């Protein structure tokens, strides 16, 4: 009775297995998208860029407990950095443009982290909104650089590695996005499992406890904001490179709010949850708005309400929830036998 436990695996081996499984799932989903939906690669690439934004948000919200409704500022920072380098600097190498987005996001992340982390609770949430609205107003005002409300155009990246052109079908862009997501996912898995990641989870759970361990909380959070900015910036740059335009919507409150919605929908504090939330939500939204343009927003709203009521820890908790239901169903049957 007692000796039926499986031999305990080392935590490192178990975590590696999860990472490998996640990478395999991303690759498989990427291949499915390519084969089954060759006409929707543009939409799917947008989903990938958003996935990077939501992963980035998960780092500060899910792992550090900082609630923010202004995270699109980091995405937009990357998108504009990359877009302006291409449009005004004449740079065409897509990898250089991605690097520019990463750097732009990193800087935006550090700056907005320094502002947002001055407060906690509701004032913090409001500061985060103020940051993204400020960035948006600024981008609108500096229209000479950003194109203002018309958007920034004239981004024409050359072929990837000098060989694969960004064609009309969007295959190159899509595959670039999938590759980027694989790399980012692997890197972020390592990050959240590292000593630094453990510290951040500690900060989310109890700031005072972490201080009583002797840790400096603010520098850790600002550093995480920088990393988060780099990831969101990559997403923004991916969007700029693959669509060829950057609009004010890339750093809007609406994008920030929808990123938070997708994160909580999938399950904050889990990288897999962030990805599943992004994909399911965007596909649902895409399908429902195409099928029923009159009621789609109502349906999206009802979906969110249902998640809060029935899956408070997001979609990532769904398998465990279902297993629990099955077990409860099975239990009385076994008892009766």
């Amino acid at each position, binding site marked *: 009775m007692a000796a039926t436990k499986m031999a305990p695996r080392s935590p490192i081996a178990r975590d590696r297995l999860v990472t490998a499984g996640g990478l395999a799932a991303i690759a498989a989903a990427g291949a499915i998208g390519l084969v089954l939906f060759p006409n929707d690669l543009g939409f799917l690439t947008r989903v990938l860029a958003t996935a990077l934004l939501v992963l980035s948000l998960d780092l500060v*919200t899910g792992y550090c407990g900082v*609630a923010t*409704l202004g995270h699109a500022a980091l995405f937009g920072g990357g998108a504009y950095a990359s877009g302006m380098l291409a449009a005004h600097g004449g740079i065409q190498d897509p990898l250089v443009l991605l690097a520019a987005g990463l750097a732009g996001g990193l800087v935006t992340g550090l700056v907005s982290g320094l*502002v947002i982390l*001055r*407060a*906690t*609770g*509701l*004032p913090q*949430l*409001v*500061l985060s*909104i*103020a*940051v993204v*609205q*400020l960035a*948006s*107003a*600024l981008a*609108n*005002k500096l229209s000479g650089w950003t194109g203002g409300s018309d958007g920034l155009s004239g981004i024409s990246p050359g072929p990837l590695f000098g060989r694969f052109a960004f064609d009309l079908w969007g295959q190159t862009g899509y595959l670039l996005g999938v590759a980027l997501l694989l790399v980012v996912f692997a890197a972020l898995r390592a990050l959240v499992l590292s000593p630094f990641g453990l510290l951040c989870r500690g900060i989310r759970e109890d700031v005072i406890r972490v201080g009583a361990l002797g840790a400096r909380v603010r520098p850790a959070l600002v550093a995480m904001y920088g990393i988060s900015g780099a990831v969101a910036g990559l997403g923004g740059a991916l969007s700029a490179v693959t669509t060829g335009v950057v609009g004010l919507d890339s750093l809007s*409150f*609406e994008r920030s*709010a929808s990123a*938070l*919605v997708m994160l*909580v*929908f999938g399950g*904050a504090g889990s990288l897999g949850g962030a990805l599943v939330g992004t994909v399911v939500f965007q596909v649902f939204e895409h399908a429902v708005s195409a099928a029923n343009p*009159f*009621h*789609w*927003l*109502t*349906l*999206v*709203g*009802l*979906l*969110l*309400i249902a*998640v*809060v*009521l029935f899956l*408070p820890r997001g979609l990532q908790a769904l398998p465990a929830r279902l297993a629990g239901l099955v077990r409860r169903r099975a239990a009385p049957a076994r008892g009766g036998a």
Partner: protein
Amino acid sequence: MGLALGIATDALAYGMVLYIISIGLSVTMGLMRVINLAHGAFAMIGGYLASWGLQSLGLGYGTAILFAVAGAVLIALPLERFLYRRVYGTHDPLPQVLLTIGITFAIIGIANSLFGPTLKPIPLPEIFRGPVDLGFRTVPAHRLVVIAAGAAVALGLWLLVERTDFGIRLRAAVDDARMASALGIRTDVIYAAAFALSVALGALGGVLGAEILPIEPYYALRYMVTFLVVVSVGGAGSIGGALGAALLLGLVDVTAKYLAPEYGEFFFYLAVIAVVAAFPRGLLGRA
């Protein structure tokens, strides 16, 4: 001089609209500790009901306001009972954000399909339409009505909270909900009443402010942030703080839009950051 006075009246009127709508949100956020992003949607419901009452049902202006306020409360109370109550005071704000954004989306979608995407006018009665000569200047009568209504709401709330039995119970529940319920105060009834009051004020503000914040389906999303900002800057749960914040931010916003319209909301949010950095707990927030 004329410009300054014009800015001042507009700012005061705008600030009062922000106040009437936001004060309800401030009460619920201070009391039930719930971040209610759907508050703007209740103000919008008030606007739609008033417009419908005036244009299709042939109600008078005063009756239409009563109809709008009562209707919004009737719509909101079941939501309070079956949805909001589950997320009151949760340590984690994320479910609150998700739930109330979901409610907002659903209300926008329903409003859009019932009333269409166009602006809904709320025609003013004859006496509010014309200009009023104040001696040194003429201003639209509607602005004066809004300013007076804001002042009346502030005074009425103050009397309610400071002078009535309900106010005593309300303050007890705000200070310490567990203690209050141990003393036999029915906190669930207090919560429902405070929620109804909050929605009623929101709907009233939605109707009175429709000249300044026009009623259309995306109203709920467009001004969601503005109301939240007013509450936070004033300090959740503070009647005086919300008034100060609404007037201050109204002044900043109107002045900036008169003098530097090309900057959009830049100065508004700059002021928000400055105030939050200087007063992290709100202008008159409790420690």
